[in-house]
């Protein structure tokens, strides 16, 4: 039994956590604002621009 994550997992976890801290968390508020704006324009089925799509 070994309960530790392996090296590759730890490496990817570090990268993902950095991505979340840098890009996702700051984008959450922007997402909500853009989503509300789209909904107000009757475009509630579209992705907010912050998703980069």
């Amino acid at each position, binding site marked *: 039994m070994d309960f530790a994550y392996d090296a590759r997992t730890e490496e990817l976890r570090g990268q993902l*956590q950095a991505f*979340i801290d840098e890009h996702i968390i700051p984008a959450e508020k922007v997402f909500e604002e853009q989503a509300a704006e789209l909904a107000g324009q009757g475009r509630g089925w579209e*992705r907010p621009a912050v998703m980069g799509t």
Partner: protein
Amino acid sequence: MFLAHHREGAGLTNLQYAPLAELSGGSHLTPEALNCAAPDTGNMEVLAEFGTKEQQDRWLRPLLDGEIRSAFCMTEPDVASSDATNISTSISRDGDVYVINGRKWWSSGAMDPRCKILIVMGKTNPDADRHRQQSQILVPADTAGISIKRGVTVFGYTDGTHGGHAEIEFTDVRVPARNIISGEGEGFAIAQARLGPGRIHHCMRQIGASERALELMCRRVTDRVAWGKPLAEQGVIQDWIAEARVRIEAARLLVLKTAWLMDTVGNKGAHTEIQAIKILVPQATEWIMDKAIQAHGAGGVSQDFPLAALWAHARTLRLADGPDEVHKRSLAHRELKKYS
């Protein structure tokens, strides 16, 4: 990161992917930012696993590149779809084409204007063996005869920014015969293969969502003062926090064990554990969300915190990909078999 497990993707084992999916569950934006969101994940897996080279070039590649979105059309309003053998949309052969007729709902992703491809499940042979009656077929979203009736809401949420959930009517929808996935009669097996990993991915993300809720709860009760002391000093709040931590740790260990079993003995050998986490995790998460909301007071049900949406998602997962009762029934049957 996708296809996480596939040789053409990141090539991760389930045990390696689980902690990453967990992290991604903390925000509803992350799975999509990583192109690891349902239903595209499952649809890409189906195409990678069962698609022809032509199907993969036409649909898998743009999905992997994030250029288009997709939907999975299985659940039907007119039958108890938790028993997938009930799915009755007809897919009948007419020369070089298949003709599709039926009504679907909870076709997640189909409200998105960028959704270009639907994977539709239906019956090609109602007289075949129970698990060989159905097939899955690729239907371009702009095919004549497809009518999107409405977006179905989840506790009032449209989930519009994630593609929504459509009710769709198919009337004499004609697609080339080569659009069938893997062949006639394979629909049930593909559905099983698709939903297995989907269930564990949902559970992994729910652990992350629970961590987020616990963090929000701890921050809130540390900041808010009532009757002269922080809420964090109230015994009942401490009980919620301790219970939440215990439930998260227990759920995570079972999810990791399940991931390990899937890697070592395969999805079939992990059957009991996959069902166990599908039963345990959304319930644990729902309880934690509920307490986090309670600790936030009325703010917890508002749009100013992610808790209301997280709760709605956790509660919905007790139905999505098979209701709790279906998994319990099947798990109990297997347990009882040891004694019969």
